């Protein structure tokens, strides 16, 4: 078990929590989607997402916070997490539909995964009231993240 010391833990610097509880997420009404061959082929909104917005969502601690676990080509952010694989090059490994399903409900691929489902609103235990029955992100935000992830060639 490797113990690396925190590079910047300067005296008295108080670091933020990995996940904030302040965000009120997304939608109550889910868009239905079809999983086929380990992928969701169709856009949840029927439209392509906005990659620039997806990049912002990946950084935002109250939204995607993908950086908590993944190294991504986002050099202006000092801290990238290590719990998941590097996403640099992921669009060469997976197609758009696979990436969409991976973000919507990663347990489809791995029951034991630590990665949260970003478009799921049931089947959880003791969810805080303000997040109950809600998804982490909206369908449009999922599409923005799919569009951004597809740029990671």
């Amino acid at each position, binding site marked *: *078990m*490797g*113990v*690396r*010391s*925190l590079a*910047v*833990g*300067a*005296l*008295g*610097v*108080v*670091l*933020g*929590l*990995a*996940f904030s*509880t302040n965000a009120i*997420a997304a939608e109550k009404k889910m868009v239905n989607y079809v999983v086929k061959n380990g992928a969701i082929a169709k856009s949840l909104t029927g439209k392509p997402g906005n990659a620039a917005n997806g990049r912002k969502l990946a950084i935002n*601690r109250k939204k995607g*916070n993908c*950086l*908590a*676990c993944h190294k991504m080509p986002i050099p202006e952010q*000092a*801290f*990238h*997490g*290590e*719990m998941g694989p590097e996403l640099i090059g992921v669009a060469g490994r997976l197609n758009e539909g696979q990436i969409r399903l991976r973000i919507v409900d990663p347990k489809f691929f791995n029951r034991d995964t*630590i990665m*949260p*489902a970003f478009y799921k609103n049931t089947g*959880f*235990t*003791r*969810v*805080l*009231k303000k*997040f109950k029955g*809600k998804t*982490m992100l909206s369908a449009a935000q999922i599409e923005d993240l799919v569009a951004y992830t597809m740029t990671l060639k």
Partner: protein
Amino acid sequence: MGDIMKKQIQGILIGAAVAVGLSGFAGVASAQDMIYKAGDRQSGYMYAAKETQAIQDDDLGNPAYIWVDEGEALWTKVDGKAGKSCATCHGAESAMLTDVGTRYPVYNAKLGKMQSLEQKINEERQEKMGAKPYKWESKQMLSLTVYMRNGSRGKPMNVSIDGPAAKFFEAGKKFFNQRRGQLDMACKHCHEDGAGMMIRANMLSEGQSNGFPTYRLKWQKPGSIHRRFRGCNKQVRAKPYGYGSDEYVNLELFVAWRGRGLSVETPAVRN
């Protein structure tokens, strides 16, 4: 200190941490005697930044020592209808000599369940002293628990999970492995699978409890292990349990057992 030396000979590794041992407290281990690594288990100290370790190592600079002093004063302070203090029954220094900090939570036959140190203190206050219970996260409760656990500093964590404690231990273990919240994560995901990894700017540790009540730089004061549990639950957007709830006392037992053999570090300093 003698039995700690023995433990070293038995092959338990001492963390290779730089120690600025200035401890002048009678009967309390100084920084270089601490066991930060026991078997495959490591204290949060080993995952902390060097600067944070340095604050903990320096007893004169550790901001939590004000709470130790405060707790010592409460130990001898008469309170309640019976006109007694803790010291009336236990002696002026007994907190320094006992191993209470290593043993709690313990099974309480009268209650038929586990009892945490905070709950024991309030039982003593109500039943022996005729005094009001302290609120869980109050200055008094934190001071007294910091003082008492500091009295066991350097001694290895050693909770009993046998006999009547077994089923509560199992409940705590189940809690640790149960996914919860909108993020659907269990304690084990961050503190077993993730220990040693960065989660953005935070280095994940094993989630050991041997330093509690811990002085968190973020809190600017010591906090109980139940406060930490609540914080970790809320991080994954799960509804926390109450201070002193059966769920958390059982979880505390399991977490203390996970850290068996690690030195009590109270008051530890963490981010």
